[in-house]
């Protein structure tokens, strides 16, 4: 892929980071760190990889995305708004009473959201179900599922991993946001999940280990995953929690803390954005 396209995707990701920070500041509640670590992957999916139609969210030929780590809902919402599923102004209503932008993705209200997530560990099973259904229907659509590394501690993830390997779901691609942090601290200290690549390989997956902020690598890997036959692919993406806002980076304490009034202009400055309050 030419470098110009990568530059465009990187700029999109930057804008989406700005919108994440603004939306979370507006709601004064929500998950900052894991939204920022995941957004480069979400950007690549919605603005390069996936076939989808914002004007027709239920278009049959669409690829499906499941945000298994549902608390990173802001990352999904900014991508959907930017793509045109709903007005960007809605983002400022995040988590408010009456808003369709619930604290965790809710397929009942938000166009473009496929299933309800938020209870960690359940998403990959639903992605498997979609992949099975699409295969039954002879569809060319693919399913993408984004998980957290702490989320891998849930047993259901491994039941789903086993099933995806068993059923050779090559129309499924999982991405794991390995930002090395969860709520109570470092994943390695709370309940170590490594070696993640070996585990998935043992369950019959095609495994690719990348830098989850290297847009060229993300895009190339997603393209490559689509051509792998006979097994599901997992992209194990090494990321930085809070990526893009220096004082949020690598801090478990910013897992579920929104930017304060003082932090907002500084955060936007980190993202190369002027702040007009």
């Amino acid at each position: 892929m030419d470098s110009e396209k990568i530059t465009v995707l990187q700029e999109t990701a930057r804008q989406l980071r700005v919108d994440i920070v603004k939306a979370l500041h507006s709601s004064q509640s929500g998950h900052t760190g894991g939204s920022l670590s995941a957004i480069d992957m979400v950007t690549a999916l919605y603005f390069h990889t996936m076939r989808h139609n914002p004007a027709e969210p239920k278009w049959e030929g669409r690829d499906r995305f499941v945000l298994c780590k549902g608390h990173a809902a802001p990352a999904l919402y900014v991508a959907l708004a930017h793509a045109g599923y709903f007005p960007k102004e809605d983002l400022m209503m995040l988590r408010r009473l009456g808003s369709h932008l619930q604290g965790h993705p809710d397929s009942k209200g938000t166009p473009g959201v496929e299933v309800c997530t938020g209870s960690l560990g359940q998403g990959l099973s639903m992605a498997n179900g979609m992949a099975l259904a699409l295969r039954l229907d002879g569809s060319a659509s693919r399913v993408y599922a984004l998980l957290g590394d702490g989320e891998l501690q849930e047993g259901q993830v491994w039941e789903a991993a086993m099933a995806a390997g068993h059923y050779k779901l090559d129309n499924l691609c999982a991405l794991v946001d390995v930002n090395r942090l969860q709520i109570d601290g470092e994943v390695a200290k709370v309940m170590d999940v490594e070696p993640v690549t070996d585990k998935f390989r043992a369950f019959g997956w095609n495994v690719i280990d990348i830098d989850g902020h290297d847009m060229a690598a993300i895009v190339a890997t997603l393209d490559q995953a689509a051509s792998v036959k006979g097994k599901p692919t997992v992209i194990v993406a090494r990321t930085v929690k809070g990526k893009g806002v220096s004082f949020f980076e690598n801090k478990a304490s910013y897992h579920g803390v929104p930017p304060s009034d003082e932090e907002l202009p500084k955060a936007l400055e980190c993202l190369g954005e002027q702040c007009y309050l």
Partner: protein
Amino acid sequence: MSTMIATRDAYGQTLAELGEENKSIVVLDADLSGSTKTSVFAKKFPERFFNMGIAEANMVGTAAGLAAAGKIPFVSTFAIFAVGRAWEQVRQSVAYPKANVKIVATHGGVTVGEDGGSHQSVEDIAIMRAVPNMTVIVPADGPETAKAIRAAAAYNGPVYVRLGRNKVPTVFADDAPFAIGKGSQIVDGTDLTFVTTGLMTAQAKAAADILKAEGISARVVHLATIKPLDCEILLKAARETGAIVTAEEHSIVGGLGGAVAEFLSENCPAPLKRVGVHDRFGLSGKAEELLKYFGLMPADLAEAGREIVRKKRG
């Protein structure tokens, strides 16, 4: 008595004290120790604290094993995950063998707020109440939480304690008596009885004040223990006031209202109204906004009180 304490803070404090007094107490959490406040115990007794990661089912099963080997495990996470994700482990590994496991869940009900419906447990009381051998406790405030946690530790068998996220007004004095299975009449009255649990008890007290100004005398009976039910205090309320309004931060299906309705309809039928969440999921919003949205404010209780008195008087 206008101090405001979150029941989870009282839990963290009490658990750390108990850890000092009883070396058999062990604590398990699932990556939410800062929120459930088991972190206070973890800091003091790191060797008796086990962070199980985001794996609630395994956590509850492990607790059952610890109990089988003589420990007194306290298991904490949000109510939605303790009761939801680990439901069958609670049923098979804890309740069925009558294991001495204490499940203390925080963030119960709609006052979880902005996280939304996926995180607001409005059915946990009903689910836990349906399990044989399970004791179900929903304290009203900080001081009562401290006593409930101590009582749970002293009791031999499975206990589910449901706590909240936010600060709530203190209803009970530090020296108010507490016993599992015993309700407390906190306001006397003759025209109707509010039977309440958790944070709705403070709301009912305020509702009784509203009604008093209108010449309606409302009794308030707080049931910290929903199972086993305090039948005596309920029979007395039904006989003496002849009208019941139940109130809980929970679905009207199967929780406190369900328990009271089941018991009274068989033993002393009286006009009864259940205040709670009307068989629907929660949604994002601020805690206070959601209490209004779901009709759980003192004004809503007062209205239910007026309605039930009219019904009683025909």
